[in-house]
């Protein structure tokens, strides 16, 4: 009986295990508990699917080296900085 009870985890625990699973930092026992939870909990199952989607997006972004922002430093600031560096270079 106690073993059966051990299998049950809360949604809070399940979502934490989902995070650990994504980083492959989950033990076998935890994985079993998570699987069992996901079979009966649609909400956590959705969380699992969606956070995997976000996770994959990051992996892809890193692999393709996508720049998420495209800021430019002002030309005047660049000049000032270049000037500063030139002075340092001459030292």
């Amino acid at each position, binding site marked *: 009986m106690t073993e059966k009870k051990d299998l049950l985890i809360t949604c809070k625990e399940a979502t934490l295990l989902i995070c650990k699973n994504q980083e492959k930092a989950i033990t076998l026992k935890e994985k079993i508990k998570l699987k069992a939870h996901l079979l009966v909990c649609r909400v956590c199952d959705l969380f699992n699917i969606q956070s995997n989607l976000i996770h994959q997006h990051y992996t892809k972004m890193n692999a393709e080296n996508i720049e*998420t922002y495209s800021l430019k*430093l002002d030309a005047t600031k*660049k000049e000032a900085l270049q000037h500063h560096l030139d002075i340092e270079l001459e030292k």
Partner: protein
Amino acid sequence: MLNPKNWINFYADYLLNYAYFRVRNRELAEDLIQERFISALKSQHTYNGTANEKTWLTAILKNKIIDYYRSSLSKQSKITDSINGNTNNDFFNTETSFHWFEKKQPQDWNNTEKSIESAEFNAALANCMQKMPEKLAVVFSLKYIDDEATETICKEVGITSSNYWVMIHRAKLQLRECLEKNWFIK
């Protein structure tokens, strides 16, 4: 070979974006890259020629950002309070043995036309990253953008492994919710 004459031209914009994505404050990002160019110049002798110039400059900037994180984290005493156990209970109801609060439950994204593949999604993601509290964004970006090992992050930022998981857990709960509200289901 390092060629400091070209640094600003070649790398200033790249490094600005790099810093901004992490510290999420333009002025601060600009200050950080300025400081970094100067100190890179002074530490040219440490360049051993194995990495390329861009990688080398990025690595020095990254160290500077980690220093900044560390000092900013140590100033916020509340961090330790909020990562000691009680956190994330705004998503899960303690009175119903930690079921999701109804208004916090993930909604199905399949009924929406919105896709994660579009360019606008990246903007939504960036916005949600901006909304993340700094301490979470720090840990999250080190892991998901810089792909650092968890042990390294804990050591660099000065947190325990269980703090790390609480923070990643929270970051993901918040990020998913934010994307749902601001992108998938508006």
